[in-house]
């Protein structure tokens, strides 16, 4: 096992250890109340103002880390005073409930 793979597995294990169980209902409430939907859409579809959240590939830990310190100039940092780690875990749990979209090829209006 090379040292890089080891580090990766260690960090993944650490991430797993830190993963919290999210409350979907509270996550939905916070997603709407605290304005996440304003840029990312009520269905997490994204748009001009914000990235798509539906079907995010980010693990929970990375998601929380990003919200704490976003790289996008347009995204505000939501610190723990505003949304706790548990709050963000709840929001993450809610985001993961967004349904898998149909493929565009299966939607006649999206095929010229």
């Amino acid at each position, binding site marked *: 096992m090379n040292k890089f793979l080891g580090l990766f597995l260690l960090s993944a294990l650490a991430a797993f250890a830190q993963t919290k169980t999210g409350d979907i209902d509270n996550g939905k409430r916070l997603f709407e109340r605290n304005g996440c939907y*304003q840029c990312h*859409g*009520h269905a*997490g579809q994204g748009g001009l103002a914000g990235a798509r959240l539906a079907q995010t590939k980010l693990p929970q830990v990375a998601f929380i880390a990003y919200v704490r310190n976003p790289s996008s100039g347009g995204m*505000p940092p939501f610190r723990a005073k505003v949304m706790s780690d548990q709050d963000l875990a709840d929001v993450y749990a809610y985001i993961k409930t967004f349904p898998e979209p149909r493929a565009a090829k299966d939607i006649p209006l*999206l095929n010229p």
Partner: protein
Amino acid sequence: MDKPDESKNPVNRRGFLTGAAAGVAGLAATPPVLLAQQIALKPEAHAPAEVTSNQRPGSDFMVDVFKSLDIEYCAANPGSSFRGLQESFVNYGGNKNPEWLTCCHEESSVAMAHGYAKIEGKPMLIMAHGSVGLQHASMAIYNAYCDRAPVYVVLGNILDVNYRRGNPEWVHSVQDAAAMVRDYTKWDDTPVSLGHFAESAVRAYKIAMTPPTEPVVLVADGTLQEEPITEKNLRIPKLAMSSPPQGDSNAVAEAARLLVAAENPVIVAGRVARTPRGIDLLVELAETVGARVQDQRLRMNFPSAHPLYGHPGAAIATPNLSGYDVILGLEVQDFWGLTHKMTGLNKFGMESQPTTRPGAKIVSISAIELSHKSNYQDFGRYLEADLAITGDPEATLPELIEAVKKLITPDRRRAIAERSAKIAEANQRDRERDRELAAVAWDASPISTARLSAELWAQIKNEDWSLVSNDRFVSYWPTRLWNFSKPYHYIGAQGGAGIGYQAPAAVGAALANRKHGRLSVSIQGDGDLNYAPGVLWTAAHHRIPLLTVVHNNRAYHEERMYLTLLAAKYDRDPGTSDIGTALNGPNIDYASIAKGYGLYAEGPISDPQDLGPALKRALERVKNGEPALLDVVTQPR
């Protein structure tokens, strides 16, 4: 024109007032108390006299002047300071060329003219009081100024104190009517005679139409309007249009050299195409040099399905220019902002850094250098261009294209072809990705803006359509999913980012489209519609066919996002952002409002399954020549 025959009517208003003044002067030596008694004893001497005249008023001549300019419409909320012109337009001018349009707000009048100009390529008149009417109109004039749109503003005013009869005429009168908007109009004048009026009216048209095209103001004095024509040898000057300013040939040759030598040039298109030819020229330049075109969507500049079209998604606002070695900006809005990155609002302090790569050459072709003003800051931050060419892009492109063609060697031609093929591949990938993104939340309620745009496109794509609205607030989905190619397919945005523009601009653009038989559709923000919804009645009254699809996110949403951002920045409650921004509690029923103004309307529509059939029903009404409105409850962006 006919000379007035004063002998037939000696009791004209000016003569009457002169006589009255002489009478009062004759009594001047009489003690005031006695004077009052005399007046009381002889009321008939000072009773208001009905002054009639069979002589033509000055406003008839003004109508002749405007007819000579081939102006189709005059939009106005009626006002006593230009009643003479209104009466002459209708009874002397036959209410045709210009035809009078009844507006419910001066801001609507101007924004209608703004939208009309961007379709028809020429101004229409708007009229307003020089004081209260212009105060209403001023934001819309600023929008037109920032958007380089020619709008012809005529202001009523009574300059001579002797002619102001009472309070309304005093409070409506102003010493220098155009002063209020001089910072954001190109030219104005206050003629003091009919001959002066004719010359300035023609000059105003010429100035408005010479790039950079911008609003102009002409004051029509109330006395000049209503007094009989007494001036001799009146004539209307010939309209002699100026050629648009073209870039210096040496500078254009240098721009061509840079473009041909570039390994990866890009063209940023701001307000490029003034005429249909502008689109063809930009296509020819892009294809000749093999450059991607990043369109700011301020005009219909470039076909959206062209393989060299830059990714139209979020990148419109902040395209990534880091990979290019030559950046050619054509009448770009905020060129500095496009080439620099500033500190986001979520961090303290303001810093900036270039987003272009070291050594990249920045070339600008712009006519706005010819029309700078100081007070309003629409000119943006100073751009350290490597080559700044003063001139109208459309007028300069033919020479630039020819210069480029002369410099292209077989080697460069091969490189250009290879580059163009790569851009086309990337364009295809972007379009496919956009379709996949549009599928996300396809069945969601509120309805996604992608779904709204796709449903509308399905209904209009086989028609001769015109989108008479900006699509920024719906994440540019029409640009990403539709096929924009003709000059009237798109009209851009407000210019000055002044809200209240969209609804009347759409009506004005639809008015211009009407005689061409085009199908006008507008995706209308709910917040914007609330500024002056009376323009819906204007559309109904004048039978202006237009489908208004309300993008109803029930908020002034842009500001709501800012409030959330700031609250989070300060570690405060972001859940308060609805205060002062949300348009709910109660929800506004736009369909009922529209019905009240006489439109066919449906809504609120929140189930995406209902949208397609509703669009079809509404468009049938529009195709029959009437306006219609659908209230669609949508996702925010």
